[in-house]
């Protein structure tokens, strides 16, 4: 199972607590992970990726295994430790403001 940690506002929006665990069949890419997440929680559609372009929203970041994966191509496989469920995939609201 893939472990995903959402930022607090999106957890509240989706009425969930703690980590999300999702099953993905096939290669675990960023796109596959987010597609599966949105399929399970439709309210998240448009909050992480722009509905029109499919691109990551500017102030949302993706971290895992101590790396910033925000600018990885959507079809790049996520780190093996995320795919194996050993490490979570973090969706983070960027620090913006003062």
């Amino acid at each position, binding site marked *: 199972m893939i472990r995903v940690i959402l930022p607090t506002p999106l957890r509240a929006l989706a009425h969930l607590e703690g980590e999300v665990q999702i099953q993905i069949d096939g290669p675990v890419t960023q796109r596959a992970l987010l597609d599966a997440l949105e399929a399970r929680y439709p309210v998240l559609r448009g909050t992480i990726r722009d509905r029109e372009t499919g691109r990551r929203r500017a102030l949302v970041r993706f971290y895992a295994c101590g790396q910033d994966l925000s600018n990885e191509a959507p079809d790049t496989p996520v780190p093996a430790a995320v795919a194996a469920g050993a490490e979570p995939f973090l969706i983070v609201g960027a620090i*913006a403001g003062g």
Partner: protein
Amino acid sequence: MTSVRVLVGTRKGAFILNADGKRERWTIDGPHFAGWEIYHITGSPADPNRLYTSQSSGWFGQLIQRSDDGGHTWTPVGNTFTYEGEAGTHLWYDGTQRPWEFKRVWHLEPSPSDPDTVYAGVEDAALFRSTDGGHTWQELSGLRRHDSGMRWQPGAGGMCLHTLILDPAHPGRLYAAISAAGVFRSDDGGITWRPINRGLRSDWLPDPTADTGHCVHRIAQHPGRPDTLLMQKHWDVMRSDDAGETWYEISGNLPSDFGFPIAIHAHEPETIYVVPIKSDSEHYPPEGKLRVYRSRTGGHEWEALTRGLPQSHCYVNVLRDAMATDRLDPCGIYFGTTGGQVYASADAGDTWTPIVRDLPAVLSVEVQTLP
């Protein structure tokens, strides 16, 4: 028993204030959607328990929430706002052309007759409509595609369609106001539009009386006098008596003719309310005194309403969607401030009381008069 429900959108959530017809004791429910910007929360005239909310965030984008039980429970509905066809470009601050890009929903205007039909005014300026209770949205693209669209540019708050009036007397007639483009009218249900800005004067424009480019802050219409429109512009309070064909100034003796909201008494079409604000850069009340100004003569002559409002050291603003009236007698007037106060008057403005003092900055106030 008659009651009043005040719907308040703030920078950090929505609040619902309730009172009976006396409007003396209030309950405060919220925050709903805590932490999110609520540009607008409003109810359907056809079904008061049907509410629509624009919920947005600079981080996580736009959602629309719907309630079918007067705001007790909410369901997210559709949040796809796709411009129809080629998005095109508009004027940017630096004189270049920039593509139209959806940012947020500023204003929701439910149909007076069908709870499932609701219009959305958005930034970058365009008009959308849903006929399925908010699940799907279709653009009425004739407005954005107007020949003048390439010359529209954002006001300081963004290039937003902030006011929409569905004319109760003329089927198919809609008014839309855009900062900073001006007022537009459709007579065919939103398919085609034309600017109706004759009489407006904006000295910051190369042509101060141009067809478009005016920074209109808010327009209001009394349902009993549909051809009369009132406008608070970025400088000047204006009036039209011919459905927007021509405008004339009614600022009269106001201490500042700058401001954002404008409202009309529910039972007296010639009684108008504005909140003068000092500008261009201050955006707080003149002399630090929060005063609503009322005209009982349809403009020109204004009186300051001060009883119960702070008359020293007050430096809040009142934004364009943050003033509304109920339909009781005497008429109730309500407004919210950027300091988080929601003030109410149950006597048409003679005296004021804060319902609540310390909310996040108030973006919008709507009032439902419930049977």
